[in-house]
C-alpha cells in the first residue's frame, strides 16, 4: 500500500479525529502547509508551529512539529519569543480571523511592523467557530451571526491590506477551493525573510453557512469559487463590477531586513564587534 507523503507529518493515536466539522476548510489548509514544508525540504525538528485559540488554532496538535498552542490572540507574541531566541526555527503561526484581528489585532500589526520572520497562516472563516458562531472582525456587514441576529453592524477588516500597511514583506489571500494556488502561496511565504501573511478563506458550513443559509459544504465551496476573483482579473474590472467579490492573489511581495538580523547587528554593536 502506498502511503501518502503527508502521513508521517501527522501525529498518530488519540490526536485524531480532529475537532473540525465536516465541510470545514481548515483540513485543506493543513494539507497545504504540510505539502509546502515537504516540498521545501524543511526538517520537521526546525519547524515550530505556534497557534492561538479557535478552530484553526487546534492544528499544532495534529501536525508533528514543535508545537505551541497558546492563549486567545497571543500566538504572535509567543512566536516572537520563539523566533528571537532561536532564529534557526521556521516559525509558522496558525491563527483565525477572531484570534489574529480582534483580540490579537495589536500583536498582528506590531509583529508586521517589526518584520518578525514569521509565516502567518490566517484561516478566515468570517466567524467565531469554536465559540459557536459569534461575529468576527471579518464577518461582512449585514451577515448573520449568533451575536448579530439582525445582521452584523460592523465593517470588516481586510487582513492583507492591514498587514501590508503595518510593514509585512508578503501578503497573499487564497481559498481552500483553489488549493493548488494556496499551496504555492504558503510555500512562497515560508521562503520569505520577514513577516509573511497568507490569508486562507475557509468556509464554515456548520455556523456561518447555516446562520446565513448558504447551503451545504459543497455549495459553499461553489460560492467561494463564484465570489472570489484573482487580482489580475480584478484589475480589469470597474468598482461596480467588483461589488460583492473578494479579491485573491499575492498583494505584496517585497523585501525588508528581518528583525533577528537587525538585532544581531545590535548584539555586534554592544559587543564592540
Amino acid at each position, binding site marked *: 500500500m502506498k502511503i501518502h507523503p503527508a502521513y508521517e507529518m501527522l501525529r498518530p493515536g*488519540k*490526536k485524531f479525529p480532529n475537532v473540525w466539522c465536516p465541510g470545514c476548510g481548515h483540513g485543506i489548509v493543513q494539507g497545504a502547509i504540510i505539502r509546502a514544508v515537504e516540498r521545501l525540504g524543511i526538517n*520537521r*525538528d*526546525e519547524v*515550530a508551529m*505556534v497557534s492561538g485559540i479557535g478552530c484553526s488554532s487546534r492544528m*499544532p*496538535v495534529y501536525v*508533528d*512539529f*514543535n*508545537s*505551541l*498552542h*497558546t*492563549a486567545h490572540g*497571543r500566538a*504572535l*507574541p*509567543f*512566536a*516572537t*519569543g*520563539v523566533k*528571537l*531566541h*532561536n532564529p*534557526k*526555527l521556521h516559525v509558522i503561526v496558525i491563527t483565525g480571523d477572531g484570534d489574529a484581528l480582534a483580540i490579537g489585532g*495589536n*500583536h498582528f500589526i*506590531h509583529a508586521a511592523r517589526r518584520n518578525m520572520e514569521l509565516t502567518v497562516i490566517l484561516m478566515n472563516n468570517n466567524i467565531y467557530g469554536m465559540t459557536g458562531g459569534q461575529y468576527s472582525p471579518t464577518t461582512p456587514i449585514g451577515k448573520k451571526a449568533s451575536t448579530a441576529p439582525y445582521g452584523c453592524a460592523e465593517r470588516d477588516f481586510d487582513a492583507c491590506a492591514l498587514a501590508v500597511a503595518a510593514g509585512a514583506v508578503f501578503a497573499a489571500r487564497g481559498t481552500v477551493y483553489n488549493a493548488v494556488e494556496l499551496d504555492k502561496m504558503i510555500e512562497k511565504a515560508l521562503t520569505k525573510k520577514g513577516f509573511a501573511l497568507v490569508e486562507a478563506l475557509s468556509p464554515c458550513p456548520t455556523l456561518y453557512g447555516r446562520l446565513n443559509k448558504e447551503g451545504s459544504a459543497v455549495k459553499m465551496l461553489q460560492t467561494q469559487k463564484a465570489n472570489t476573483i484573482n487580482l489580475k482579473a480584478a484589475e480589469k474590472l470597474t468598482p461596480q463590477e467588483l461589488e460583492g467579490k473578494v479579491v485573491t492573489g499575492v498583494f505584496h511581495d517585497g523585501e525588508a531586513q528581518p528583525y533577528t538580523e537587525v*538585532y544581531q547587528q*545590535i*548584539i555586534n*554593536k*554592544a*559587543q564592540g564587534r
Partner: protein
Amino acid sequence: MSKQIKLWQGNEACAEGAIYAGCDFFGGYPITPSTEVAEILAALLPKHGGKFIQMEDEIAGIGAILGAAAAGAKSMTSTSGPGFSLMMELLGYGCMAEIPCVIVNVQRAGPSTGLPTKGAQADVMQTRWGTHGDHPTIALCPSSIEESFKLTVKAFNLAEKFRMPVILLLDEFIGHMREKMEVPKPGELEIYNHPRPKVDPKEYQHYGDGSSVGGPYAAMGSGYRFNITGLTHDKHGFPTSRLDEIQWKMDRLRDKIDRHLAELTEVEEEFLDDAEIVIFSYGAAARSSQQAVRQARAKGIKVGLLRPTTIWPFPDRIVTDVLKKCRTMLVAEISQGQLVYEVERCNKSNTKVVPVLRYDGEMITPAQILKAVEEAQK
C-alpha cells in the same frame, strides 16, 4: 578578584542579578516604577549575547518570554501593578504549561493606575490568586538591594527547578532605594540549570519524567518534538479530557509546591528566642520593622522580627509556631492588611494579631511601628 562594591538601586540589582543567573531573554513593556529593570537589561543583554525586546504591551511581554523559554531561553519580564494585572492570563498559562520564567513586579500604590511613583505592598494577594483556576505560585520579596540581587538569582533557580513562572515581588521603596552592596563573584551563588533529556525522542514525554521537579525537559528545536498547550494535557503535552489525566495534572501542579515547602520557604528571624511581641513584616516594611525592633529592644521591650523572603507559598508552619510562643503578633505592611488574614489563618493559639498599616503611598515608619509595639506592651 578584588571585592566589587556597588551603589545600586533595587531595580538595578535585580537586572544585574538576572544577568548573573544567566538570563538571556527579556520581553516587556515599560511601566513606572519598574522601568530601570528593562532599561538596564536593554543595555546588558546584547553585551552577553542575549536578546531584549520591548513589546507592544504587557500581555505581549509575558507572551514573548514564555515563547522564548519554550525555545530554551532563561527569560524574564518586569512590570508594575497595572501591567501585572494584564499579565494574569499568561501567568496562568505559564503555570499550566510549566514554562520557567521570572516576572518582576515592582509594586506601586493602586488600585488602578493609582500612584505610579509611590510604593505599596498591595499586590501580594494578586500574586497568589490573580489568575483563574487552581494552582500555587512562588513569590519572593527582598528587603534590601543585596537581597534584590540574590533573590533574582534564586527566582531563576526556582523557576528552572520547579518549571514555572516565579514572581519577584519588589516594591517601589526597594526598587528605587540605593544601597551599597558587594557583588557576588562568579560561582559564588548557586546557579541551577534544569537538565535536558537524554532519552530517545520517540520515548520523550514533556511532562512524564515521573518527578514533578528537577526532571529533564526539552527545548523546542532540540530534536524533541512535543506539544505545549494551556489546555489540560497528558504527560506528552496533548489536550485531554480523561478524568484520570485531569486529576494527574492538577495534583502535579499542586504537589510540586506542597511537597517542597521546606525547601521553598525562607524566613529571617531576629530576637525571636525570648520575644513576647513579634512583628511579621516583609519587603520594604521589614526595614522599618527592623529599626523599630532595635529601638524597642533598647527600651527593654521583648520584641522580635519574623521576615519571610518567600511570601508564597506562605510560611504557614513557621508562623503558626512563632504565634504559639509569643503574646502578640504585629503585622506591619504597606497595604490595607493583605497578609493579616494569612497570619490569622495560621493562628492556632489565640494569640493577639494586630495590624500595623500604612497605605498612602509613603513608607511605613519605624516610629509608627514602635508606637504599635509600645501599645501592645501595655
